[in-house]
């Protein structure tokens, strides 16, 4: 119960002020397209030079927590996922916003974030030693199978047909091979200097999600002079609470998936939201409503991506190994004050470590309060006329892509992928599986190569990739996931007539 003992330290005037600053600043940075949590935390590092270690960490921890949640704002209102963690939020969240339920979607997302986030931090407090072993359990072969599991999700994720989903996923996997490969340094498909570093995920996300929408808005503006005015429905916060509690399955699956995946070094944050979305879709009684502005989709995705925040710090705090890019930046923030994280961190610097964790707990609650306030204001975005909205989104898209590494190359990548995606969407492809391919490609490839190098030097490929309970478990889940997709495809095809397909196509365009 050490964490209760140090709880008071969070509420000293300076510490609490920094916590507020980090939370509000984090929400704003998170809502800005292109500024991922990692970048937001890296931007704050220089400010922590001047602060006490404890204060610096409070600022960084609060910013980390709230940037992840803040990403939902642009995902829901503008359909620009601020970071890979928010991809799944766009699927139902933005659809809700276009139906005038933006306020509701934002309220749900912040409440779900807080529930997931608090659960994740409590897990960090109580189960860190156990979880540290779990974080180490995933070697190259397991990460490879995990990435393959992610690929199987592609088929069932937000797509009218499994085949088109898989095709989009393959395009994503191909895009992922562009650039120097991570291990051997071989050059692949570098047809222009701006892609020599590979396709950066953030500009790709912005392009794939925002640009098709901008083009659609511009074309609509031209065909009909009186742009449709969406009435923004007010949504009392009380109802949002009821809704979140009513959707127990989605909340439960989101939180659990987020915490488990968040623990795995190097994979976690990026796919937690998507996997949780897919799982709760499979378990939901109303799975056909997913993708049409269904509240469960938002709740599952957002509870997952905030639940992963706490567990993602486990490898850092116990083993001194940063499990994610954001954790690496936090490590820098610790080292600069001469604090080495490790198993004795809580013994040597209890005040720093516990106050940091406590501030993340309080930060979740503050984030939720400010988020709910923002939800009321931000939902008015839907009232903006299409032409203005399109211009704003386009401006933010260019700014966001450029700011990732001050490079026009990323802007070109964003623009070309976006235009390409516009045409793909007209043929019924969707962006989410494509992005998932882009994210999973390098993970699967690098771990397969590493695994096979180790295997060839030791036990051989067969026994390296196919023995051990964790490998078996993952392979079983992969098989289950594939057979579920096939079964769904066959079952649905029985009822899908040509008329249904035509109606679906029309609804899409």
């Amino acid at each position, binding site marked *: 119960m050490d964490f209760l003992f140090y709880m008071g330290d969070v509420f000293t005037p300076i510490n609490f002020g920094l916590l507020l600053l980090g939370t509000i600043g984090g929400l704003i940075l998170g809502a800005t397209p292109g500024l991922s949590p990692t970048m937001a935390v890296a931007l704050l590092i220089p400010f922590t030079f001047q602060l006490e270690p404890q204060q610096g960490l409070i600022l960084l921890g609060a910013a980390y927590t709230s940037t992840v949640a803040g990403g939902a704002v642009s995902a829901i209102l503008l359909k620009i996922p601020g970071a890979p963690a928010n991809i799944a939020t766009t699927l139902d969240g933005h659809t809700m916003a276009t139906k005038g339920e933006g306020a509701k979607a934002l309220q749900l997302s912040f409440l779900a974030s807080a529930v997931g986030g608090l659960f994740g931090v409590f897990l960090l407090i109580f189960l860190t030693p156990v979880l540290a072993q779990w974080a*180490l359990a995933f070697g190259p072969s397991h990460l490879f199978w995990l990435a393959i599991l992610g690929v199987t999700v592609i088929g069932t994720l937000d797509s009218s047909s499994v085949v088109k989903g898989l095709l989009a996923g393959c395009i994503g996997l191909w895009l992922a091979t562009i650039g120097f490969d991570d291990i051997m340094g071989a050059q692949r498909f570098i047809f222009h*200097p701006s892609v020599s570093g590979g396709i950066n995920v953030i500009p790709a996300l912005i392009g794939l999600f925002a640009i098709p929408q901008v083009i659609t808005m511009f074309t609509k503006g031209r065909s009909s002079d009186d742009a449709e005015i969406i009435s923004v429905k007010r949504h009392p916060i009380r109802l949002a609470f009821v809704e979140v509690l009513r959707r127990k399955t989605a909340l439960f699956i989101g939180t659990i998936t987020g915490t488990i995946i968040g623990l795995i070094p190097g994979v976690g944050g990026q796919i937690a939201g998507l996997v949780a979305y897919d799982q709760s879709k499979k378990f939901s009684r109303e799975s056909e409503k997913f993708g049409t502005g269904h509240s469960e989709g938002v709740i599952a995705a957002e509870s997952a991506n905030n639940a992963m925040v706490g567990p993602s710090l486990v490898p850092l705090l116990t083993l001194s190994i940063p499990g994610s*890019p954001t954790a*690496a930046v936090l490590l*820098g923030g610790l080292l600069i004050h*001469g604090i080495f994280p*490790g198993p004795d961190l809580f013994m040597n610097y209890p005040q720093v470590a516990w106050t940091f964790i406590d501030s993340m707990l309080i930060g979740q609650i503050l984030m939720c309060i400010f988020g709910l306030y923002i939800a009321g204001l931000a939902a008015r975005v839907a009232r903006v006329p299409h032409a203005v909205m399109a211009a704003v989104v386009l401006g933010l898209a260019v700014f966001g892509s450029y700011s990732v590494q001050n490079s026009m190359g990323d802007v070109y990548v964003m623009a070309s992928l976006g235009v390409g995606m516009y045409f793909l969407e007209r043929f019924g492809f969707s962006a989410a599986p494509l992005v998932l391919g882009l994210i999973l490609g390098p993970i699967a490839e690098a771990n397969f190569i590493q695994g096979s190098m*180790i295997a060839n030097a030791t036990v051989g490929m067969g026994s390296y990739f196919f023995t051990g309970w964790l490998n078996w478990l993952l392979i079983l889940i992969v098989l289950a996931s594939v057979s579920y997709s096939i079964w769904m495809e066959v079952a649905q095809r029985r009822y899908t007539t040509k008329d249904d397909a035509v109606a679906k196509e029309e609804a899409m365009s």
Partner: protein
Amino acid sequence: MRKWIAGAALALAAMTGPALADGHASYPERPIMMMVSYGAGGATDFQARIVTMTAGNEDALGMPIAILNRPGAGGRVGWNWFATEAEADGYTLAAYNVPHFIAQSIEGGVSYSTDDFEPIANWGADPAVFVVGADSEFDSMADVVAYAKENPGGLTFSGAGLFVGHHIAALQLEKAAGVKLAYIPNNAGGAGAMRAVIAGEVLGGVNNLSDAFRAQAAGNVKILGVFDLERNAFLPDVPTMKEQGFDIDNASVNFRGVMVPKGTPQEVIDRLAEVVPTMFENKRVQSRMEAGGSPMAIMTRDEVIEMWAARQATLEELLAGL
């Protein structure tokens, strides 16, 4: 009207005149950018941020240095950009990592070599060390080599990638001990390579001294040897490779410093070469680096030019056999 334009033109000329005549005496006039070719949070990024934090002081450059990360392909992406696209006006600096960029230029497929960059000063030297898990049966390099002799090509050990300091150290060890080893480059850099050692995925690993020092303090690894000419102040008890009977020099030591692109005006280079080493000597910088477990080695421009040339020769010979 024509007179007015002529007047305006004259006035403009008068305004820009002094600046031109002045040359680069007033450099720097605006904030400077420094490119780091590794991601935020990595050792190079972390150290670059510390050593440049006093740049804005009046006794230093008087202008802040902002860090810009361009990670990818073991540094190739950033250095390629720096050699081909960065403006040589003194407002674009970069951090270098030797032997990484020299080894990559020898390997080929990149558009830079030592001739494309002008060194300014060196701030750090992070030797490679050999680590094994805390519960490993190996207690010295002799144990490791004995195992490798019994199982040729079966000793798996991790490192941060190909053609970086760790890889060079691995090649040197293979050559000096006369054994075949299985070097497993990690895609997640030094941190990923360290994780592989702690989790027992590999039998050992080459890693940065600064990271290994922390991991040892946390009780996760044993450090068996240092790939350097002398023992390190952070690890006085760990013998060098040479002490353990392997003829290995300091070719794999990760030197970090500041450089500019070729073609930067000589006045600017001179000014930077004079001021930048004094920034590294700043007391606050030194204490932060010490606290972070990052060994410093301050070298002037002339010393770095010499060091680059020496590395070029050593690495060409070592990599010729590949």
